């Protein structure tokens, strides 16, 4: 029996290397090797399997529910639900604003929470937004990024979707610092935590329907497209929408042939 153990371990490792890990290209092909490092997705084969699973789950359960929600609930109701979800999220946003040293934004979040929780009738109305205190998001993954943490490799989490070690840690911390969760846990109302998560997921999924329908139709490699989009939108969120930062602007503007080469003249020369 003892002799079979290493066999099982070997079998596990083999299957992991077949289904789990991508094989890096040889270092001799430096460009390909650098591309592999830049992609930072060593678990790609496994991630793709999880992605396929998530998509099946989405198609079978979440997406139909989100479509029904969008079709059945009037816009007014969905706006109220969205505002309430955002309002419940405010304490976590506030703490992250503070931890990032964004005092103006922290104050905005604080005033928003105060106004919307009271005059906005328990957050159902975004009155603060109407008077120009617009909402913004923050999470601990972004705070870690501000503090200098690298994202680490791309990871496709089952059910939860695209992530990386930094953002996954962020999710856990955000859950732990949320006073709502502490309150439900201490008062035996855990079911409210699940209810809130369910409604938030449904509402968020409904808001993404147009985008995902577009992607389903237009993407050529949906996995690669969503990986890139996840990273770009995270970079955008971390910079608080200031996408002129080096991360995003350096690449797309670097079109080699727009600085006076013959061929661009030829293609620009069309009347």
């Amino acid at each position: 029996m003892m002799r079979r153990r290493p066999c099982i371990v070997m079998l596990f490792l083999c299957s992991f290397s077949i289904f789990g890990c991508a094989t890096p290209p040889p270092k001799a092909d430096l460009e390909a090797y650098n591309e592999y490092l830049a992609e930072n997705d060593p678990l790609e084969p496994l991630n793709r399997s999880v992605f396929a699973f998530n998509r099946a789950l989405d198609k079978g359960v979440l997406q139909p529910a989100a479509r029904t929600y969008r079709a059945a609930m009037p816009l007014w109701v969905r706006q109220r639900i969205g505002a309430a979800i955002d309002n419940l999220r405010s304490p976590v946003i506030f703490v992250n604003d503070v931890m990032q040293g964004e005092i103006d934004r922290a104050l905005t979040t604080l005033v928003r929470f105060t106004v919307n929780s009271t005059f906005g009738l328990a957050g159902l109305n975004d009155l603060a937004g109407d008077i120009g205190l617009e909402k913004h998001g923050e999470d601990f993954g972004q705070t870690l990024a501000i503090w200098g943490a690298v994202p680490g490799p791309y990871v496709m989490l089952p059910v939860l979707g695209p992530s990386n070690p930094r953002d996954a840690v962020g999710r856990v911390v955000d859950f732990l610092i949320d006073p709502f969760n502490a309150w439900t846990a201490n008062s035996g109302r855990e079911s409210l935590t699940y209810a809130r998560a369910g409604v938030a997921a449904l509402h968020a999924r409904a808001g993404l329907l147009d985008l995902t329908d577009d992607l389903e139709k237009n993407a050529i490699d949906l996995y690669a497209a969503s990986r890139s989009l996840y990273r770009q939108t995270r970079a955008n969120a971390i910079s608080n929408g200031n996408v002129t930062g080096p991360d995003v602007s350096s690449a797309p503007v670097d079109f080699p042939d727009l600085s006076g080469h013959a061929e661009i003249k030829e293609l620009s020369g069309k009347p």
Partner: protein
Amino acid sequence: MKRSFIILIAVLLVAVAPPVRSETLEDGASAFIRALEKEAVESLTDPAKERPARVEAFRKLFEEKFAVNAIGKWTLGRNWRRATEAEQKEFLDLFEDLMVAMYVDRFQNYAGEKLDILKTTPVDENRATVHTEIVRPEGVDAKPISVLWRVGRQGDIYKVLDVVVEGASMSITLQKEFASIIKNTGSVAGLLEELRKKTTQLKPS
């Protein structure tokens, strides 16, 4: 005597000659985006036009206003050099078809909605970023959509180099997709096969 006369003429010429370019890059780039919006609305919202005619009008607009070949070449990245001349040519043709098919509906959905130009920032002497917002008439989330237009200038001609919607760049996303397909199929030919399938499936016209 003769020399100082020449210098005098030169000084006069410099003083009298109008500046080579009267408009700044920023003004030119934002005027270009304004014109693009106007033309897009005209070519996409004409109810008298059938869809094929609309797609054709959009293709014309697209060829005129977007640096299609430059974007295509950039998205292929290092694989551009690895492709044969025939592959490069087929790629650029397929790339244009793909972009037209992808963007005709995206433009259509937004044509006629308010496009606010917030500011224009220079990237270098011939490139600028036009920051715009599309204000959706109504929705669950009232926040306007941020759209950045990367615009390049060549002489008096302006072209769109990239569109960045809510931080997501069209060019970067396509480049990552293409690289992934080439890696997984092993060749540029594999990508062309996928592009042929996709463009047929999307049926641009």
